[in-house]
């Protein structure tokens, strides 16, 4: 091949990869910009935060006034963060346990009406949960679980289960039956079989279910607003509306931005910690 042709091909490849990475950088800028904006804005001084939002970055040096201000709302931001973590953590824990067992059952056992039951579970995804909030409220009240974080957790778990069971059934379907049979011959039964052999193999599915359960419970607003009536028990989204509603008509934008950051960070951490499994989980069964 001539040197000129080689140089031309080289140049074309350079432009190609430049375009590829350039587009990637541009796209990620679009996604990152709101977070960066909120993050920078939350670091502005108290007085500065009331001024027009441009430029978004702090001009008079960094200050944590906004975060201190956020703490004066409700029962203190720590309290509400704790509430949110409790509800989200509980939702993740219960959802993973129930969907793991249900997914295993639907994948491996033969029982009457199996497919009908599975379709029934999936079908509940079609009911917008806002429309059943009133009955839910009444049921929880009858059970003595209204205005309790446990009641809210149970509602979230229920809403999360159809998708999770579906996800876990697919995860178990992807595990070859022979591996389970080999383990049975090796003497692993029931609980040990599930924990020692199968759980590591369906970890991507578990991670996906956990991320979805966490994000949905963490960000959920309407059910929390309706089911919780005690100020102390508010989760972060409910607190945030209180902050956004302002006091005596004045909205503290600095506190709002600080609240946004406080709400974003756990989601980011969870996603980064589990994203390796999460990607695999979503793709499991896509190519078989």
């Amino acid at each position, binding site marked *: 091949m001539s040197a000129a042709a080689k140089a031309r091909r080289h140049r074309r490849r350079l432009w190609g990869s430049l375009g590829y990475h350039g587009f990637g950088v541009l796209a990620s800028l679009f996604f990152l910009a709101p977070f960066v904006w909120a993050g920078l804005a939350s670091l502005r001084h108290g007085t500065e935060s009331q001024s027009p939002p441009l430029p978004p970055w702090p001009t008079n040096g960094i200050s944590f006034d906004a975060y201190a201000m956020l703490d004066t709302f409700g029962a203190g931001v720590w309290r509400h963060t704790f509430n949110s973590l409790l509800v989200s953590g509980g939702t993740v824990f219960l959802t993973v346990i129930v969907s793991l067992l249900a997914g295993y059952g639907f994948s491996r056992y033969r029982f009457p009406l199996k497919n009908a039951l599975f379709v029934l579970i999936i079908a509940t995804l079609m009911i917008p949960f806002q429309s059943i909030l009133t009955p839910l409220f009444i049921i929880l009240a009858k059970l003595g679980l209204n205005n309790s974080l446990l009641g809210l957790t149970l509602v979230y778990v229920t809403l999360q289960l159809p998708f999770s069971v579906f996800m876990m059934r697919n995860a178990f379907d992807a595990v*070859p039956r*022979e*591996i389970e*049979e*080999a*383990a*049975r*011959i*090796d*003497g*692993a*039964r029931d609980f*040990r079989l599930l924990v020692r*052999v199968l759980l*590591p*193999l369906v970890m991507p599915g578990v991670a996906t279910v956990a991320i979805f359960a966490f994000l949905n419970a963490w960000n959920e607003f309407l059910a929390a607003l309706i089911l919780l009536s005690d100020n102390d028990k508010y989760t972060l989204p409910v607190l945030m509306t209180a902050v956004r509603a302002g006091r005596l008509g004045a909205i503290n934008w600095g506190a709002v931005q600080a609240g946004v950051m406080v709400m974003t960070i756990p989601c980011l951490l969870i996603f980064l910690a589990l994203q390796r499994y999460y990607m695999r989980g979503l793709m499991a069964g896509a190519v078989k």
Partner: protein
Amino acid sequence: MANATGMALRQVRKSFGGHEVIHGIDLDIEAGEFVVFVGPSGCGKSTLLRMIAGLEEVTDGEIEIGGRDVTNLDPSVRGIAMVFQSYALYPHMSVRDNLGFGLKMAHSSKGDIERQVEAAARILKIEALLDRRARPALGGQRQRVAIGRAIVRKPEVFLFDEPLSNLDAELRVSMRIEIARLHRELGNTMVYVTHDQTEAMTLADKIVVLRDGRIEQVGSPREVYEDPANAFVAGFIGSPKMNFLNAVAMPDSTVTVAGARLAPATRARAVGPVTLGLRPEHLVLGPSGDDDLPASAEFTEYLGGTRFLYARLADGQSIVAEHRDGPDVVPGQMVHLRCPKERMRLFAGTGERLR
């Protein structure tokens, strides 16, 4: 051998939802025997093996291992170990953990597990792999690990479910020899399922030919090849397949095929239509005479060491012959095929062998 144990199946049946797929199998397996279940796909050989392993419930009948009724026991306490076609290694564990998993589940001590794993690895020459993950190893190595996992369990009976089907041709031959060596070294009873008759013929002490959930014949490789019980066994064992020709038995104990008159060593019980079985490797090409089968050559396959000739008899029946020496046959040429009369097999219309 100390740990060799016999096995017996008594009227073993299996139904899936009212549909019976295994119809009352009776089989005795001697201690230390290498038994191969062979048959076309769907004949129930894998199901039968899985019933022995305890992975499939027995609908009716009894399975004994070493004189102990294991029909309703858990797979882990039957004294068996199984090697799967897909290896079925635990992908999240190292090779060492894969081998030791069974012992760990049985609560053996750490030192014990270590010793037995090392011993099994030595037998299979996979010591170097022990601390690698099970996943990336090559097919042959993976199957070695799977066999190692079986050895570590120190089973009374080894079960193999088409263990070589996922390997390429070359590896299959070397692993076959490896399994034969293993059987000689360990001396255990082994039950091996395959659809590959070469594996069956080379490995088995005893071949069990199955069809549609029934045993067609049990015997040594020599017995099933030389003395098949019926047309199915005769056709299934041997490659290329035995030629089955429509013939008519004559009163003078000869048979006529496509106008030619042949004299098999066995005589038909009655005058009338019979099936004449001739193995391709027993047919000899020769000059014309009065005891041969004239056929016109259609095409030939050259395999280096041997050649297969596909020809058609005067009445249109096709016939395959193997020939090694002599000049090449060209399509269209007339050939004269002969078979030693003691090699000719006669079958009734039902497939039953006429002796």
